[in-house]
Each structure stands twice: as structure tokens, then as C-alpha cells.
């Protein structure tokens, strides 16, 4: 029998869906700012694999000559990004949700198994918990990256008033570099996250919107909170998470 089970609390879903467009706008406005001094690259010594970014890439996205606009957007949405992130962390701590999210001593080993499974190198399915070890590591890392963006952001936003902070990050230009690569890290996270969500399927995605996931149970639930039952013929990908 199938039934609906609560998966993600309403608060978590709001934090997630507020963060998505806000983080997108922070990266976009950050790109408008970065263009004015687009000096970073991927390479070793004199060898450059890739510059961030070639002129034609900037032009294709309409980035050039929008520094003032980029800064004003960045210094507007930074408040939403920071407050949403802080309230999220406070919520996960107080509600106990952190227990699902923070990696434990088994997470690393489990994460390797999950990666092997997802690369089709291992047949055994990841454990059907809310978040497996790979997810715990990924989601906790991205929160730490958020904290890193705030800290490096303050260091380049007010490098005189917070000179101690800027100095502790290696100086003004290093802090800018760190801030840039954290943004690059979000893009990488986003790509993997999106692929995994696509893989996990509709049931998993819907749970992040509605909060409920369809699960298969062997016997009807007779105790505890009643769960709304659903038609048994509904197509689902049960117990897969992302």
C-alpha cells in the first residue's frame, strides 16, 4: 500500500525556495561586478586552461558595463541571502532537523558508496533515509560555503572597518578571490544537485514543494497520525531521495 508521509517541514521548504532565486541573483549580480576586474583563471604557471570569462561569454549574457547596477543589486539581495541563511541555521538547530543534515562518522564511507552507486559502479542502493551520507556532506558543505560567502563578502565590502577580518583571510585581493570561488562552488553544487534531483524523480522533487512523499508500506498504518491515502496506481519513484 502507498501512503503520503511528511518529509520536509514547511520552514525548510520556504528557506530552500527563497534561497534559490536569491542565490541566483547574488551570483548574477556578482558576475556584473566581477566583469570590471575579470582576472581569475584556471591554470598552472603560465599555462591557462580557462579564463573567467572570455569576452564573448560576457557579451553573450549581457554582462559588460553594468557594475553600478550589479553592486546595487548585490547590496540589496545580500540581506535576503544572509537573513534567510541565518534563520535557516537557527531553525535547523532548534527544531532538531540538523540531525538529518550534519554528517556523522559513517557519512564519509556511505558517501563513497552513494557516489559509486550513482556512477553505476555499485549495485547496492543507498540507505532509504531522508538524507544519505553524500547528501549530508553536500548540504552541510554548502551551508558552510554560505557562511564563507558572508565572511569573505564582509571582508571585501568593508575592508577598513573590518581590517582584522580581511587580514585574516589573506588580505583584500585574496578575500575577493575566495569570494569568487565560493560562488563557483555554488554553481558546481547546483549542477550536481539538479542532476540528482532529475535522477531521483518527481516524488522526491514534489516533497520539496508540498512536504509530502509517497512511500510504500507493507501494512496499513493503524496507529499514530493518520496519513491521507492516495490512489495506488499513481506512478512514483518510491524511497529515492536527493
Amino acid at each position, binding site marked *: 500500500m502507498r501512503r503520503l508521509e511528511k518529509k520536509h517541514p514547511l520552514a525548510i521548504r520556504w528557506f530552500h525556495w527563497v534561497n534559490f532565486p536569491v542565490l541566483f541573483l547574488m551570483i548574477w549580480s556578482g558576475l556584473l*561586478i566581477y566583469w570590471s*576586474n575579470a582576472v581569475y583563471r584556471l591554470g598552472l604557471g603560465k599555462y591557462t586552461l580557462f579564463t573567467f570569462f572570455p569576452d564573448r561569454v560576457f557579451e553573450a549574457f549581457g554582462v559588460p558595463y553594468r*557594475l553600478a547596477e550589479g*553592486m*546595487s*543589486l548585490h547590496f540589496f539581495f545580500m540581506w535576503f541571502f544572509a537573513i534567510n541563511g541565518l534563520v535557516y541555521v537557527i531553525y535547523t538547530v532548534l527544531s532538531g532537523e540538523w540531525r538529518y543534515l550534519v554528517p556523522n562518522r559513517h557519512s564519509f564511507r556511505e558517501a563513497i558508496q552513494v557516489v559509486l552507486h550513482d556512477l553505476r559502479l555499485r549495485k547496492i542502493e543507498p540507505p532509504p533515509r531522508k538524507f544519505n551520507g553524500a547528501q549530508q556532506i553536500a548540504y552541510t558543505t554548502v551551508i558552510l560555503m554560505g557562511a564563507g560567502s558572508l565572511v569573505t563578502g564582509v571582508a571585501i565590502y568593508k575592508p*577598513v*572597518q573590518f581590517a582584522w577580518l580581511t587580514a585574516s583571510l589573506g588580505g583584500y585581493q585574496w578575500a575577493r578571490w575566495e569570494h569568487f570561488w565560493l560562488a563557483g562552488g555554488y554553481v558546481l553544487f547546483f549542477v550536481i544537485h539538479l542532476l540528482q534531483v532529475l535522477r531521483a524523480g518527481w516524488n522526491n522533487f514534489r516533497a520539496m514543494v508540498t512536504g509530502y512523499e509517497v512511500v510504500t508500506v507493507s501494512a496499513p498504518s493503524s496507529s499514530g497520525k493518520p496519513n491521507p491515502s492516495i490512489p495506488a496506481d499513481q506512478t512514483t519513484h518510491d524511497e529515492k531521495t536527493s
Partner: protein
Amino acid sequence: MGVGAAAGFAGWKWVTTRPEGGDLGQPLRRTLEFNEKLAKSYFNETRVAPTFPREMAREPRLTGEEGLPAGFDPLTWRLEVVGAGDARTVTLEDIKRLPRVNMTTEHKCIEGWSEIVNWTGARLSDFAAAYKLGTRDGTSPDVRDRPRDLVRYVGLETPDGGYYVGMDMPSALHPQTLLCYEMGGRPLSMEHGAPLRLVTTVKYGLKSIKRIGRITFTDERPRDFWAEQGYDWYAGL
């Protein structure tokens, strides 16, 4: 969720609506002003930018030429001072008589690059103290003990008025805000703002105006070249 998405989209439209010209729309401008208020509340004149060994100093790259037309004669130059009392003019010699300050600091452009530069000049605060400028009662300014006597702003313009900046008074009186006449141990070159320019570590480089012609102490927020183009008026670091 649908309502949330619609509200988000409407919010985006509202935030990014802009008036004609180069300036920002009200939501973004107001947010910059809110950020400015917050920054002023924790601004502390005892916090200074780090200084570097003089060997690390380089000549900074050249930027815009607004307010720096050819045909300017630095020898006949005078600084026009508009303050609480009567307007007056000051010569370069007058400024060089003030305590000489040398600093090697990181000059930070709003574009994101920075360069370590060696500057020599007189503190704007020493200048204001010597000429009793920037206070409502015509005494010397005292940031710490009598901040209420200070006028709120300083405006600086090139002789032709082609470039102009405004600064809040606490930033203007910061110990690393100089009326600068030497760079790298040599008198300022024409393209770097001879005979006298502003240098400050507490603002982006766009506030460090070259070739100062007029300096005004005022309670009215001075116009600012780049703020009119959509940049933050405060631009504080």
C-alpha cells in the same frame, strides 16, 4: 508556492524599475542609503587601513580624465575653500606647511582592483583644524568630543567642475584622508592630479578626486559624479 513565486516576480519588477538616466530606482537607492546609515553607525575613525612597506608601492594605473582637461596651469592654482565663514583661497605652500604625512596604503578601485601606493600630504583633518573649517560655530573640528558641531559633508570639485565628489564628515576627518601633493616621493604628475588631490583609504578610489579646485564644508549632501551614474554615494570601505 505559486503565490510566493508571483510575489517574488512582482518584487523583482519593483526592485529593478529605474528612472530615466543613469541613476538607480528608489528601492535600490534606498537600500544603499540604509546600508550607508548602518555603516556610519559602526564607522570608527580609530580603525585604519593596513599600511605596507614602502618598497611594495607602485604607481597606480590611470583612470578617467573627467575634470582634468589639458591647458591647466598648476602654478597659478589656488584652492578655493568654502566653509562656515567667508570663502577664501589657499596656496599649495599653505598646505605644505601643515604636518607632513607619508603613508603606503592599498588604493582600492570600485572596479575591484587594488594597488599599493605611497602618498604624501596633509591630513584633511589638520587642514580643517588649522583653518577652523567644518564646524557650525567656526571652531576647529573635534570628531570625538564635539561631533554635533561638525557640518555633515565635504564636497570637492575640480577647477572646471568636471568631476566632483561628496564625502561624509567623519570619513573626511579620518587620519588616512589626505590632501595629497606627492606620490612615490615625487610631486604629483599632471595625470595623477597635480598639484593637489585627495587620497583616502576609507572610500573606493572614485572619491579620491584629482586636481582639487574647490572644497566646500556643508550640511547639504554634495553632488557626486559617480553617484549620479548609479553608484553608491557613500562608497565607504
